[in-house]
């Protein structure tokens, strides 16, 4: 295991532990809010109003509604990581299966050149698709989360199918597959015994790349107030909030606090970067491992 892979795995395992046991990492229960509190000082009683700057009492500070930022982040990890891992796994499994089937039943298609639809970014189409359900949705909690994940999975399947079909075709064109075919091996045997061992490694690498891609997609949607798990809109005055507190959503939510209580943005931003770094290191570590194995294979 190379250093990048080890570092990436360590960060991800730690984040998963935080996501599974959030109560162990914060002093406050989920949804805890404190807009006004008093502190006894030498000069008498001091009243503190939300938002409170980071202190020994609230390590990451509170937001304008008195929510403890650390509690929100710690409880939000499960939604962000859950969405990223679920969508990446679904994309790779569905796209991988479809790509392999496409390569087995027909030859890979030619490059069709420039497509004008490439001008519309994927997150815009995702925004269009989840907008009707995300704001004040009746589908709250897990049902909305799963619906959003299904939409995000379906969006970028095309390139994964194409990539997996190309990789499968490359393996199918290798001399050992041709030899097996000449010796009378059927398609099912060739796929199981000769293609799958190569594809398994590719699928794992593809999964790691997809986690980064999905995290970026979730982040972009968060900037546009489309939060994983739902957006809550209240009126008079119109205010938007994240139903789950997932960290990409917190960035979108606190983005406008740049000029005042900057800690509200800084901590979710730092948390997002830690998740991104973990996933990037994991992905690049896997690629590095693959390169080393290939060099070893070539040397033999």
């Amino acid at each position, binding site marked *: 295991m190379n250093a990048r892979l080890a570092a990436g795995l360590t960060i991800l395992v730690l984040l998963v532990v935080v996501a599974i046991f959030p109560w162990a990492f914060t002093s406050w229960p989920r949804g805890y809010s404190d807009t006004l509190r008093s502190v006894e000082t030498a000069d008498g009683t001091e009243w503190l109003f939300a938002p409170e700057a980071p202190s020994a009492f609230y390590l990451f500070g509170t937001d304008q509604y008195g929510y403890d930022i650390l509690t929100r982040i710690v409880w939000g990890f499960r939604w962000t990581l859950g969405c990223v891992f679920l969508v990446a796994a679904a994309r790779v499994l569905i796209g991988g299966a479809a790509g392999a089937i496409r390569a087995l039943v027909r030859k890979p298609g030619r490059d069709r050149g*420039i497509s004008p639809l490439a001008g*519309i970014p994927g997150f815009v189409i995702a925004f*269009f698709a989840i907008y*009707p359900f995300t704001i004040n949705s009746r589908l709250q909690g897990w049902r909305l989360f799963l619906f959003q994940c299904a939409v995000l999975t379906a969006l970028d399947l095309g390139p994964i199918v194409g990539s997996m079909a190309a990789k499968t075709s490359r393996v199918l064109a290798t001399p050992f597959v041709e030899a097996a075919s000449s010796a009378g091996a059927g398609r099912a045997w060739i796929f199981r015994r000769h293609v799958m061992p190569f594809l398994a490694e590719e699928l794992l690498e593809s999964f790691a790349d997809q986690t980064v891609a999905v995290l970026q997609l979730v*982040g*972009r949607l968060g900037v546009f107030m489309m939060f994983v798990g739902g957006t809550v809109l209240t009126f008079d005055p119109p205010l938007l909030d994240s139903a789950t507190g997932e960290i990409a959503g917190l960035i979108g939510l606190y983005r406008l606090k740049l*000029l005042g209580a900057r800690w509200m943005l800084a901590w979710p931003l730092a948390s997002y970067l830690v998740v991104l770094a973990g996933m990037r290191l994991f992905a690049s570590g896997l690629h590095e491992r693959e390169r080393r194995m290939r060099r070893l294979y070539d040397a033999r």
Partner: protein
Amino acid sequence: MLVAAIPLLFENHGGRPVLVLAPALDAIGGWLRGLADGSSFEYRYGTTVWNFFETAPLYFMVSFLYVALAGSLGLAGGMVLGLTLRGRFAAVVLSVCNTLFAIPDFIAAILLQLVTIVILDATGFKLGRISYDSTSGFLLALPFALMTMYPLAFSFRTVLRKSVEAEREPFAVYALAKGLDKRTVRLRHVGAAVVPAISEELPTLLGIMQTNLFMTEYIFALPGITRFLFRVAFSGRRPGWLEYYQYPVAVAVLLGVLALFLASWVFFKLALNLVRRAITGER
């Protein structure tokens, strides 16, 4: 038309998303019928009805300026660096480019704003405006830098890879053996070989830049065509918002975004063609 109809495809039936085709088909039919009298390009903003063709050219121009100017600067910078840097310097710049590429555009935009404010608070020095308002010009330093960053990193990586390959090609080795100096070979032979490589990667680069443009215009509140979509088509974040979703605006803006993509593609193709001719001296 189909992409813009996506928000109309689902309805809430007792809390369950149900696929319904009629509203989407009605909207598409209405838009097509409206082409005859021009009502397909009318939209409501506040209480006023506007015509898309009267307001959109300015938005389109702002977006095109950012893509064309920042993209040209980034591509040119990446090409120059990729052709001139070698060895340890190239490795350092490549590492910086890879790090830049690893940071998502919206994070980079927010970090730029954050750093600007922190520096302003600490020293009183203002790096640039953190968002557009009617008193500032269209071209702001921070979004321009952000839009330049990704093409620069992209073209540097492409040019470095391609130029290292091209330097080993027989035509470059032969030119050096004939006594031409390294600088001339790098410019005339290797430089000419990397331009088609960038041209080939243009759709990918433009795809990245379009995504950057959406984020940049939204975060820096620039009056561009992509921000228009979120400001006008989805202006009804209130109960019954679907009645306020303006399908014709969404179609018009998405067509505008596609037109921007094609216009940028033509612009960069022509520019790269001219660069290649200038390098090789072809007519």
